[in-house]
């Protein structure tokens, strides 16, 4: 164990205590008639207005891991790490219209998860189950990553021991989180998000004004970064993109943007809002977080200029680049301010972790438990089941971190992004058209999923000494379609997720006419055109928390 940083710890502990109280108090905040219904526990009563939705979705998408990993990426690789910018720039215009349809149809039919929608749209248990399982599998490592973010802060504050002792603070934080999420449901992260985001905004604005001034301006920060990348042997890093990674930059941004609202936790935040106008306003307001993320990302270069060195994780014995940001704050700021920054990151891990576990629990309950195990479950039984599932999901994530190398979570999250993209045709395209045949969608899912995974498996990362799952950038040279290599010899890189998605769509489009000609049953659509335009205030809207 390193020396504990007491002032930081006290401030961190005080703020953590504050959000714990908020978490428990949240069960009574804007309470509905009952908490024993997924509309209430899992979606906060479907009545969040513009501000709460902004904090909730912002707290949900811009996670602690993002705030730790993106600057670390710029620190390590340079311009490529800045892909988070185009990603979040295009994400909102991209989802502006489809999200409104998803919200409306879910509101009028009482859907809680994206898989619920697929079930209703196609009447297919197979397709809905595939979507639900993909969602759960993609979300789990994401929760584990929040722990990686939280732990990077705890280790910087001095809890850097090996073995179980080193993980103990993390375990305590998570038990508390699990208990108040169990009790308060989605209201807990919604309320805590106010604290989290206020802290994050304050910390980043101060850091972005203070650090460049202290380090001699952005000029010298970028010069330092350029000097660092010039020294390394690798040709893929640098302050600008090179001819080989520009396509990767654009496709990774596009793929990530397409995937963003397919993630169950993002959908949860959206469905919890009160109406269409709330969402529309948020599509313009959420980019405020992107500004923050961009500025924070640049602090990765500030860390280069400041000569920050990452900690060696005592549990794994490797240098942990994710500690770059916390270390920078630790080195450059008085300890009380570093304490606030650490609390911002730490609490920033709790909010998304809570929402993700609720989203995974909703999926389990609605699309596995109610679908296969207990078809006549009452709303109260559903809520009970979801609460239990949220506990199991969280402890599963902790076990991931405790017993398996954290690197594994990072790899899995990378894989998760490619996986969740494969639900795009069944969820996002189905919002507009039922042109694809249900068996076309299923076939496309299988092809996209397995091809995507095998491509990821084949990507090495020599720098990290890994033979497989070394990243998401595929050299076009390696693209091999049943023996045909259309781009042999090209070193230009592309994001695997996009390649797999294209394969998915092509297969779905080919199988669809075949299935139609063979007159295979295409499921029953239980939604109506008007459902996709429902809004708050419609006089015959489905009551919230109604039975069945």
């Amino acid at each position, binding site marked *: 164990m390193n020396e504990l940083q007491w002032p930081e710890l006290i401030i961190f502990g005080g703020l953590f205590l504050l959000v714990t109280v908020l978490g428990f108090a949240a069960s009574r905040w804007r309470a509905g008639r009952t908490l024993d219904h997924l509309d209430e526990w899992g979606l906060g009563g479907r009545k969040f207005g513009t501000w709460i939705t902004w904090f909730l979705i912002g707290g949900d998408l811009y996670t602690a891991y993002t705030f730790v990993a993106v600057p670390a990426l710029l620190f390590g690789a340079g*311009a490529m790490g*800045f892909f988070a*910018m*185009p990603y*979040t*720039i*295009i994400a*909102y*215009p*991209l989802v*502006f*219209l489809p999200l409104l349809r998803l919200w409306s149809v879910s509101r009028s*039919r009482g859907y809680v998860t994206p898989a619920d929608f697929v079930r209703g749209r196609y009447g297919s248990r197979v397709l809905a189950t595939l979507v639900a399982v993909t969602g759960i599998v993609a979300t789990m490592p994401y929760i584990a990553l929040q722990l990686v973010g939280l732990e990077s802060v705890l280790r910087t504050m001095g809890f850097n021991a090996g073995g179980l002792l080193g993980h103990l603070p993390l375990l305590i934080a998570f038990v508390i989180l699990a208990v108040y999420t169990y009790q308060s449901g989605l209201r807990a992260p919604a309320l805590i998000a106010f604290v989290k985001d206020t802290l994050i905004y304050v910390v980043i604005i101060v850091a972005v004004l203070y650090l460049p001034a202290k380090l001699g*301006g*952005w*000029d*010298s*920060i*970028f010069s330092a970064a350029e000097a660092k990348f010039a020294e390394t042997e690798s040709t893929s890093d640098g*302050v*600008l*993109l090179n001819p080989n990674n*520009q396509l990767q*930059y*654009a496709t990774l*941004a*596009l793929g990530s943007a397409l995937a963003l609202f397919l993630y169950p936790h993002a959908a949860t935040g959206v469905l919890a809002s009160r109406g*269409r*106008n709330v969402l*529309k*306003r948020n*599509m*313009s307001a959420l*980019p405020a977080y*992107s*500004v923050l993320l*961009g500025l924070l990302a*640049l602090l990765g270069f500030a860390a280069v200029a400041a000569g920050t060195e990452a900690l060696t994780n005592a549990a794994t014995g490797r240098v942990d680049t994710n500690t770059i940001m916390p270390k920078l704050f630790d080195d450059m700021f008085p300890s009380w301010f570093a304490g606030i920054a650490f609390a911002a990151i730490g609490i920033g891990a709790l909010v998304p972790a809570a929402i993700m576990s609720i989203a995974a629990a909703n999926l389990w309950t609605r699309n596995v438990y109610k679908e296969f195990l207990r078809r006549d479950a009452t709303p109260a039984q559903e809520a009970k089941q979801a609460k239990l599932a949220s506990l199991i999901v969280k402890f599963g994530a902790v076990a991931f971190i405790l017993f398996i190398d954290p690197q594994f979570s990072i790899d899995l999250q990378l894989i998760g992004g490619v996986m969740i993209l494969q639900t795009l045709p069944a969820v996002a395209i189905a919002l*507009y058209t039922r042109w694809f045949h249900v068996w076309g969608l299923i076939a496309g899912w299988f092809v996209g999923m397995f091809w995507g995974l095998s491509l990821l498996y084949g990507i090495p990362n020599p720098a990290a000494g890994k033979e497989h799952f070394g990243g998401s950038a595929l050299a076009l040279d390696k693209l091999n379609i049943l023996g045909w290599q259309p781009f042999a010899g090209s070193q230009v890189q592309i994001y695997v997720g996009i390649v797999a998605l294209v394969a998915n769509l092509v297969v779905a489009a080919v199988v669809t006419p075949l299935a139609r000609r063979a007159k295979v049953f295409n499921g029953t659509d239980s939604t*109506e*055109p*008007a459902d*996709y*335009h*429902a*809004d708050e*205030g*419609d*006089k*015959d809207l*489905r009551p919230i928390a109604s039975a069945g």
Partner: protein
Amino acid sequence: MSVRGGGKGQGLRFSPWNLLLIIPFWILITPIYNREGPALFGMPFFYWFQFVGIAVGVICTATVYRMTRDKPTVPAPGRDLDVDDLDEGSAR
């Protein structure tokens, strides 16, 4: 589940303003901005240009919101407006 009276809309409703949402995608064309200069506050063009990209995105989504808020749809021809059509998309 009640069937909404009269089916108040077609499957797809489109406003030309929605086309504005395509503009922010220019940020995917990296050759436009993958360069050092001109720098701003010591920041290479590559970096500050993308902050401008955020502003462009916000202007586009905000414009679409404002312009589609009060007249969300082209009403289906030959059908009486019901009260839902008048409510649709209005703030409250």
